């Protein structure tokens, strides 16, 4: 009897395991419908697809506070937009660095698809009057999408090469989505609503600064 019971259990487990992914996916889908807070559990969908794809492994963990290393001293913010009357996407990068105040920097865009330079290396000086910022841009034609780009930025400080890198992937669908979001964001929130929204924003894995 005992043996049969164990074997029966194993069978049930085997069946369940074969439907494991489906059941878990269904469970998490249902959980997301119930608006259960993500504060306590990171769900399967939020796991890194890259890590899972490269290793087939993933771990579950409760959301936690994390103590990180300081971020880089040269900042690159990228954005892109498609102008309605043109057949290209404008990629804009804002480079900012207090530590390289008034320094000349050099930067280059590279395609991640083929490691070729998208534009020749360029130099420019950080703009003191604009909080040590410089804006650089390139244009990607529509037929180059999707585009995976890397911007590398360097300068010399105290005889060493200081810099940063930023990678950006541009998909045609993202451009559509981003223009919609831009329109949405134009509305002005009341103070009460703005505070409420920020307070209740689901805590990201990296808590707000």
């Amino acid at each position, binding site marked *: 009897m005992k043996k049969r019971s164990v074997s029966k259990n194993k069978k049930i*487990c085997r069946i*369940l*395991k074969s439907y*494991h*992914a489906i*059941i*878990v996916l269904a*469970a998490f889908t*249902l959980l997301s419908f*119930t608006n*259960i807070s993500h*504060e306590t559990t990171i769900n*399967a969908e939020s*796991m*890194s697809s*890259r*890590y899972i794809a*490269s*290793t*087939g*492994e*993933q*771990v579950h*963990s409760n959301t*936690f*506070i994390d*103590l*990180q*290393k*300081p*971020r*880089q*001293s*040269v900042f690159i913010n990228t954005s892109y937009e498609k102008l309605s009357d043109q057949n290209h996407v404008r990629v804009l990068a804002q480079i900012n660095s*207090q*530590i*390289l*105040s008034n320094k000349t920097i050099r930067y*280059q865009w590279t395609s991640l698809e083929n490691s070729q330079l998208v534009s020749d290396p360029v130099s420019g000086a950080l703009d003191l009057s604009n909080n040590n*910022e410089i804006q650089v841009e390139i244009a990607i034609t529509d037929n180059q999408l999707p585009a995976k780009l*890397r911007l*590398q930025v*360097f300068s*010399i400080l*105290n005889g*060493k*090469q*200081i*810099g*940063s*890198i930023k990678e950006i992937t541009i998909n045609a669908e993202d451009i559509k989505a981003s223009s919609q979001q831009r329109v949405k964001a134009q509305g002005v929130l009341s*103070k009460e609503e*703005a*505070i409420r929204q*920020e*307070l209740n924003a689901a805590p990201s*894995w*990296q808590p*707000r*600064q």
Partner: protein
Amino acid sequence: MKRKSAIRIFAGSAVLFLAACSSSKSSSGSSTSQEKPYCNQTFSYSTFHTITGHAQYERRLHTVCGLGDVDPTTYPIRYAEIQIFDHTGSLVQCAETDGSGNFSFKVPDDNQTYSIAINSRSYNALNKTSVLKDPVSNEPYSLTTNFISDADKSLATLTATANEAGDFNIPGGAFNILDNTFKANDFLTNHSGGSFNVTAKLRAYWKRGINPVTYFGGNPSQGVSFYVPGSNNLYILGGIDGDIGVNDTDHFDDSIILHEFGHFVEDNYSVSSSPGGTHYGRYIIDPRLAWSEGFATFFQAAVLGQPFYQDTFGHDNSTAATLVSSCGASTGYFFDYNIETNVSAMDVPTTLGEGNFREFAITRFLWDAIDSASGEAGDAIQIDFTDLFNVYTSGFKNGEHFQDMGLFLREQALVGPNISSLYSKSDALMRASRADFAASDNPATIKNPASPSCQYTIQAQDNASDWKENGSFAKSNQFASNDFYYLQHPGGPLSVNLSYVVSGNADLDLYVYKDNYTYGSASSLLSYSARPSMGSPSLDNGLENINVFAPAGIYMVNVQYYTGNPRNGSGAPFSSTTYTIKINGSLICH
């Protein structure tokens, strides 16, 4: 409502039922293995051979370009676990490398083939660390070789390479992490006045090409090393999406490894109330975060004995002799910061007390306390790390909440040595008090709201020219635009009443946070009052009131200057205002 409850039960049951089948599997079906026990048995044999050898690791050079070629100097693998197996895979002996990377052990004299594995683990009085591949396999890195037990012999040197051509997994990275944890433990042992013993065990997860933030669903392209409080787990960045040639890696950045180890020390031997999160070293931030990060960066400098904080990305084949003009674009420094000279200033405060809210100001201050007294103008102080560590692990820790620099300096001043001459140094501007953060809630005897000692002035200020106030919590200047009061509530009704002068665009709001709060997070709030005013006097009577029933506990009362109201012109200063605050009817006074 009923429907939602039913769905919850179903979803929960599905997960629990599966968990009963296999508790060691994650929801993707991949197995999570426990770390294997440390090898610490000594096997005795009547007839034996003595096998000796040497284990070492490689690392990459830090050059003018960034992370350069493989360092021609090799480094001993110190105090690491050794396992010896017979040809059937049975364990026949355990050993450890010594402080020079040498080892010696005995195996039976039987002319059989044995294998040796030198693992990236230590568990002894000098170091208790396991450097593991990932949190799923929990396997250490191993250097292995075989030998035949036919005579006493010395094995060929085992080397953990730093070069992908030698071993794609670059085990030199793992052994460099292990050695840094030994350095840190050794430093603490020798700079704690005998109060430090290696007791807590650390797990450091690292794998070539892997950004560990992906284990938790973070942004895979934003590389980061981090420590998870309460877990004794540290995660070191091994690259981004398989790449180590251009992207950020930290396995040879000792500053980063030791910074994160500093958080482990804080977690196990002191205490942290940091909310965690991103920090750049250029903005005023939550003082608990600034303290935790500032101390961790100081700790790495203290262990390494040099005032630098270095973080590289990518690597190339540059050497010590490479000219900077010859540097390619594949590597560089995110940071090559000189803590002592603060060249290209970072985190420089302008007002007394502001330094308590800036991580690099804290780092510089602590470094100045222990470095040579003759190296810098205004720094005539030199104490030992021991003096700081004793405060860190006693008065600062015990029975306190909301740990920050103000609390640390207040406790340090009680026991000395006197380092107060450093407080006003222009790149520090520290206050050894809790006046700027977690001011006491003790009700004063003065009951007259008109008394200056019961009135507080507040005027919002932008954090930085590229981090301006905009009404959000994210950009609220926690030093200038906020006041914080430490509240010990016995339990029961709690009323907090804020009254301020309506003036210009001044608009104050009231928040009561729970202990260990994250600023601006609803889940951290007990209650708040942020009445709409939008600068309109008709809607604003200058009063914010909270009346709740609160459990006994520790809370933080926060008066926040809301900055979402329009300024009178671009970049114009915010209006100054004064306020009084009552807690359960008692005025809070200076």
